[in-house]
């Protein structure tokens, strides 16, 4: 189990518990459950890299304590 921090810098910052082999899509649904925004609206980025839904966190080398940028589309 790892914990990933998502911050939209507009007042929402959540710490999400997940598994490294969860996909980004799963992770988005977890985030959506925590912040109350629908998962489809969430865009996760690290700098200019937009994470794609079908790829796992481990593949993006997202480990415990990593913080991601969260945007809404």
């Amino acid at each position: 189990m790892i914990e990933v921090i998502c911050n939209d810098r507009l007042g929402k910052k959540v710490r999400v518990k997940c598994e490294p082999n969860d996909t980004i899509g799963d992770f988005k649904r977890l985030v959506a459950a925590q912040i109350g925004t629908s998962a489809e609206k969430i865009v996760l980025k690290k700098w200019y890299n937009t994470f794609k839904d079908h790829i796992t966190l481990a593949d993006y080398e997202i480990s415990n304590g990593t913080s991601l940028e969260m945007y809404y589309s």
Partner: protein
Amino acid sequence: MEESLSIEETNKIRLSLGLKPLRVDTDAPATSGKPEDSVPDNSVEAQERRAVDNWKRHQDDIDKEIARKARIEGIKKARDAEKRFAKLEGKGLGEADENEEDTTTWVRKMKKRQKKLAERMAREMEEELQRAAAERSEYTAEDLTGVRVGHDLGELDGEGMVLTLKDTTIEENEEEGDELISTDLAERERLKERLDLKKKKPTYNAYEDESEDGEKRILAQYDEEIDGKKKKRFVLDGTGSASNVDAHRREVAEKLKSIAVTLDPIKSEASSDYVDPATLKIRKPKKMKARATRKRSEDDDDTLAPPPEAPMEDSMEVDSGSAPAQPKPKRVFEETSFVDDDDLQSALAAQRRTALKKRKMLKPDDLARQLREESAAAATPGADSPIREDDGEGEPGLVIDETSEFVATLRAPVVPERRSRSGAPAHSPPATSMAEGEDEDEDEDGPEEMDVDIKPEMKPDSETGEISSTGLAQETTITHGVGATLAMLHQRGLLTRDSESDVKINLQRDREKFRTAKRLRELEAEEKAKSQRLRDRQSGKFDRMSAREREEHARWENKQRDLQEAKEMAARFKEYKPDVKLSYKDEFGREMSQKEAFKHLSHQFHGKGSGKAKTEKRLKKIEDEKKREAASSLNASATENAVQSAAKKSKQAGVRLM
């Protein structure tokens, strides 16, 4: 700040989303610690753990390998060291000998050795003695039996000769045995051989059968090379004489026999076609060069020079003629006198003389006569010949005919005009027009000229446009006043006349009229206004009004007047025809063409002019124009210029034919 759910809540959500529940770290090691887990653990941590294990195993392997190599290396080193020291086995210098002999054995050994040495010495002594005995025995002729001598027996003369053993290689010695030679004789033979080689005798022998020893051989010159040199040698017998003396004798006898002696008397030689030069006696001719030449030249003079009686009549000419003729033959013979052959020379001289005689002698007076005859013959037919010039009859140096004159006028039409002006004035009035100049030239006599001069004055002016009989237009003059001058200028293209100038003039007049009318009307109106004002004042109209009212009234009046004037003007301007002409002048006051004006405006608008080169070009053009205008006076070349410029303006290329 950060919102975070607990693990249970997260798990609940995960279940609702259809995901696996979270694996909490605390029980993770417990599961991974058991290898008997049949299900392969694919979690990231497990993978990492496995990776670490793998890494450790790999490292262990490497370590083991290194250790093994080190061991092998150690063994090898030890083996090498052993091998190296294997040679050094045995006793060293410092080490004590184990099987040391005792004194008795050593003494025995020494005795044995001494005995051996003594035996050897005795044997050597014996051999020495034997050799000495052999040497002491006498060396006689007997010892020389069977030894060969490398020379012909005949070569060895009776005197004592020192023969030595021949210097040979071991191989040769093995083959042939000892041979005695005399170094002297050998040397002599070699020298002879060399000399023979130098002579280079022809190898080809036409009479093959007549070889030295009578035997017939094919290509005898190669015998030596094929068979080797034939050596003359003999073998000594025990008595010290040659063993085969008899054979030698026989050989010599045979040789003598083989030389055949012919008994026929000697035949006389066949007489040659040519006389033997040795038998002939030749008288050597005496050489007397200088004398001979002089005599001959005198002779030639006798034959060649004309007889002294002939030139008597005109001796002067003969002298002058013969003087250069004399040295000529002399020179010729001087040249030939270097030839030694007398006969040839005399023959040549005779030939030359006959040739000279055959040729007719040309004397100067003869020549003159001949020429005269020829000229006379030429004159009789009556044709004009260039020779007549020589006769000295008073003929003009330059003949000018119609053709040449015509050609001259064709070339330069301006020249005759000028000449007439300078040459003619003696008998022609100064008022002679330039147009008549050309006519004048073609006329031959003075009186006719006068007539021609008078004629054009009586002719009307309208005739100028016609073309005269010469094919050239009549020249206009400036003698008839300003109008004629203007006409001439116009004709020459110096002045240009507008086609609609009449219209323009009319317009100008109209405008002038209009302007005067307008001024008159203005004056009238003013007058009227004045009188009105006066009337008003007199009627006491203003007295009843206040100052303000008065002012207002005046203004109203003025306004009315202006209005009326404007109306009138509008009515009048209906018939006004403005003549609009845009003309632009440049900084020199020159009229600019449309193009130039456009350029100028454009430059003004954009605030920048043309560059240096273009400006210069333009300035030059203006300068040229000015110059041309200044130069375009009355001279005829100006006309050409005018025509050219006109052609340029009308954009018509062409050459003016004069």
